[in-house]
């Protein structure tokens, strides 16, 4: 089975465009993935606020990662110049 090497999560789960992984527990060494429908997730004021000492670019980059994570079928790869 293919898996995400960092989190040892089956890739089939990561490729599910509709659901987001909101938690991972390991039970008996096996990953138990907690999924939520991305459309049920909204971002909080804490997500969308620049942290102290965080550069504007670092903030926008962090926000982008959140958007990608919680938008159904978002493109997870880097930007393109096409």
């Amino acid at each position: 089975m293919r898996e995400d090497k960092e989190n040892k999560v089956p890739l089939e789960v990561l490729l599910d465009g509709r659901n987001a992984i909101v938690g991972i527990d390991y039970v008996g060494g096996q990953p138990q993935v907690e999924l939520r429908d991305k459309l049920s997730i909204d971002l909080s004021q804490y997500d969308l606020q620049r942290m102290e000492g965080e550069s504007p670019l670092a903030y926008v980059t962090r926000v982008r990662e959140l958007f990608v994570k919680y938008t159904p079928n978002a493109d997870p790869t880097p930007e393109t110049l096409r």
Partner: protein
Amino acid sequence: MVSTLLVQAQATPQESGLRDEKWYLPLGLLSIATYLGSAGFSDVQVLDADHDSLEKITSRILQERPDIVGVNFNVFNTTLLDDVVAVAHDIGSFTVVGGQAATPISDRLLSNQNIDSVVVYDGEEALLELTTRFSRGNRALEGVPNLAYKTSERIILPSRKDLRLPNLADLPEIDRRINGFDFDRYLKAWNRSDIDPDRIATSMYTQKGCAKTCTFCARIDKKLRQRSPEKVYDELKNLGRDGVNYVYVVDDTFAADPQYLGELATLYATRGALPIQLWAFVDARDVDDVSVDLMKRLNVEKVLVGIETGNEELRKKNGKMYSNNSLLRAMGRLGGAGIKVEDSYVLGLAGETDATLHDTFRLAQKLTSVCQTEGTAYNIMTPLIGSPDWNRLMHIPDLKKKYGKGYKFDIAELRNDYFTHFCNFDQGVLS
């Protein structure tokens, strides 16, 4: 015979921070090579830094010592440009830099002593005239269409009368295998197994130009120019014979002219539909019942729509005058026809705030209820030279001092400077 080597210097490996898309063809350079070939100048090679290493490119230059070395330029990869022109200039090749990104900064590029000239706008006529003159031993540059160059005293920019945009209908079909160009390696390069593992994809264009005025865009073609529908049909048919089953149409606005799409659809009806799916850029304002019907008949599988932001006011300030409701209606039409939508946003537009970012997220989520989205793209704003947003930057004295000359910028620093001056991100107490 004058020898010419054309190099696509826009590589997308790790150091560029961009997506790796090796299926995407260097269409502009292939078009120039085909044009020169059709005029009898057949000694033209095209190399692509997305496939050919810098070592391979420079060793080809050193071995073959071309009379002319042309390089397509992009702000994301200036080091590669500098390396190629340094090697070429050192052995006496005449160096030409061109491409979309080069046009607004021809004078800046010419500050590099290894760059002899810069082509602005399209390159077909300029390269043909240069090659013709060189073949006759004439090295004079005055009057070469679309060519900026330098003399010992000054930089000469082309006057309006020296600007020439070819009629696309007159250009020959691009030869994707010209002089041994390895088209097959592009056909094998589709790597998005999560989207469609069996896709054999390539890119082509049917039209050029866009009259819209988005502030972040540095597109130079403001008038719509079109290839003949017959030639487009023939090219698609030829691509199908080559095994292609998916074509990315790179036109700025594929559905801008419904009459044009209608003529193409008529060819599908009379000569036979083609088993090739299309993926095209479409402006939301061009999506109506007529254009959706035509796109369906042309086997359009997906459209890329630049929505930019979920905040209507911000979208208007950045040049796109439409409401979220009209957008959702348009995307609903696409959804109803079974055409997928790749919705694309720019994060960090001039005027962006935490609240407008949130609007974008919510709109992207809402869109999934009216159409099938695929590959929602969140792009981080980069002010491009030649765009209205770049001009905004040049009105800030400190930034003009920093970015007013040259062409090599730290993109991360540039973005950060832009956000600092034109966005309003509240800094909280979180740490």
